[in-house]
């Protein structure tokens, strides 16, 4: 009975046989799961527009308007931008004059430190990965393994020798120090990622370039690098997300001037004995999301191609 449509197919779940677009049932299911994943972020964004009383309200006020009376009044809050302005300047004493909170500086620090160290790690790591891939040392795998060992321990364990080293050489609290540290910590990941991308390339193409007159440098820049752009994008985004959100090293190794947003956030929201300032916290987090969100969105095409690279052979 070819014409019989099963209950599940009627709901939009097409049979698993055959390749093509998914039915709307699958699409809907995926949308719901995605929403569950996105919900915490969504709540943070919504909360950033609420005043402290509304942020703490039970049941939670989730909607900025009543949508022409559709939503009961108790779930509706009145959106405000106050949290966002007080991220950058606010009165520390009730009724006092507004003071700068220094968050413009902290945002600059976060962007500067994260992007510099991830880019540095990308440059060094890509070159190193190419070396490991094309000019293997004796015991190549051992070196790759050793590179990864610092990432095998919890950061809290590694931080103790690192603090001692930084104190001795006077790098604690400086930009150079934290950038070096993040670069070093991004390197293993970058090398491993990029090596696997280089390993996937067809060596014939490089040989052809050599015969066609390319030097080794040109082979790397003109032939290999354009083929791993997707990998570079993927590695950059993953590295950026890890570095952007890093808290522990930043807490212990940045000074007043070099403080990053995650650390500053922690200190800003402890609202002088009146509990956590949820609205303010949410506003900082919302702002904090934007750069990574933009970069990821921009590189998404590359990123998605990048992470699935190599699953299909030629």
């Amino acid at each position, binding site marked *: 009975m070819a014409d019989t449509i099963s209950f599940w197919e009627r709901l939009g779940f097409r049979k698993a046989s055959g390749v093509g677009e998914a039915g709307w049932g699958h699409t809907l299911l995926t949308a719901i799961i995605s929403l569950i994943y996105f919900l915490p972020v969504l709540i943070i964004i919504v909360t950033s527009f609420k005043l402290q009383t509304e942020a703490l309200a039970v049941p939670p006020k989730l909607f900025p308007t009543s949508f022409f009376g559709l939503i009961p009044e108790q779930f509706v809050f009145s959106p405000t931008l106050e949290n966002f302005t007080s991220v950058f300047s606010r009165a520390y004493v009730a009724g006092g004059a507004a003071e700068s909170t220094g968050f413009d500086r902290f945002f600059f620090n976060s962007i500067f430190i994260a992007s510099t160290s991830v880019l540095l790690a990308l440059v060094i790591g890509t070159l190193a990965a190419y070396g490991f891939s094309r000019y293997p040392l004796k015991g190549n795998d051992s070196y790759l393994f050793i590179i990864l060992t610092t990432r095998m321990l919890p950061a809290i364990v590694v931080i103790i020798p690192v603090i001692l080293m930084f104190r001795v050489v006077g790098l604690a609290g400086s930009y150079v120090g934290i950038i070096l540290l993040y670069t070093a910590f991004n390197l293993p990941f970058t090398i491993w990622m990029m090596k696997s991308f280089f390993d996937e390339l067809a060596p*014939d*193409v490089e*040989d052809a370039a*050599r*015969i066609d007159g390319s030097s080794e440098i040109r082979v790397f820049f*003109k032939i290999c690098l*354009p083929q791993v752009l997707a990998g570079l994008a993927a590695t950059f985004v993953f590295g950026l997300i890890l570095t952007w959100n890093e808290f522990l090293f930043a807490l212990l190794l940045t000074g007043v001037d070099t403080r990053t947003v995650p650390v500053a956030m922690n200190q800003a929201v402890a609202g002088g004995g009146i509990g956590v300032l949820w609205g303010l916290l949410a506003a900082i987090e919302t702002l904090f999301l934007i750069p990574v969100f933009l970069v990821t969105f921009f590189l998404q095409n590359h990123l998605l191609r990048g992470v699935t690279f190599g699953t299909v052979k030629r």
Partner: protein
Amino acid sequence: MSTIEARKITKRFGDFVAVRDADLSVKAGEVVCLLGPSGCGKTTTLRMIAGLERVTSGDIIIGGKRMNELSPEKRDIAMVFQFYALYPALNVADNIAMPLHYEKISKTERDRRVHRVAEILHLSDVLDRMPGQVSEGEKQRIAVARAIVREPNCFLFDEPLSRLDVELRHSMRGQIKEVLSNLSKATVIVTHDQLEALTMADRIAIMRDGIIEQIGTPHQVFTKPANVFVASFIGTPQMNLVKGKLEGMNGSKAMIQFGGEKVELEVNPAVSKLKPSQVTLASGPAPSRRSSVVPRIRSPLRPS
């Protein structure tokens, strides 16, 4: 002077000997095919000539100059790879023009040359496309175009037709042959397809386990195989190898028994060769089975 010469070249990978004491010389305008089963060292030989592998011992001489220490780009060669090895990030025209980047010629001259070879190989319509957007046959022709655009001293082909379907392979064989005969350069083609070797080559070098077993014209290797391996490798259907039993000596002649028949042979071989075309099969009891089954024993083969 377009010549290629390999003198006693050997390649070792650790304990494994990929090529052992291979001697090969290719004159200008001559096409030599390296033929052999997979893993016999023919591609390694080619890569050593190209400079992509260093020789462990022996000399590579191209155009009369010893090239052992020179990197591939300094050997003035062009190579077509089995998987074409087109540059994925460049379009077809740029792919073809790549070898010209190091020649000191103007952009117009470069374009002129690219268009000329594109015309020869019927690629003019796809010059703007990316390698991923052309057919398999076009990829193959792009690879050939890239090889001939610079007019190098000699050509190396690594299984150039193995990825094409039968029909395309046939027409490409003709095209490559024509292009090569117009250029009259020394050419080495690696292949495991004997039909390709027999039709394209002036001479064939048959390799096994890193050793060149025989070098000769297609006719020579077909009619006078140097040993059992060559005899069994060349020819479709395969040559019949009949095992015999040495019964005894009769002066300088050996008495050998094939099946029920006794045959006298000049020396002392364990095998002889028998081509299908030389056998007549008769029905019924033959008055002389010797004349129908073993009509003529030719020069005996050296056991390999």
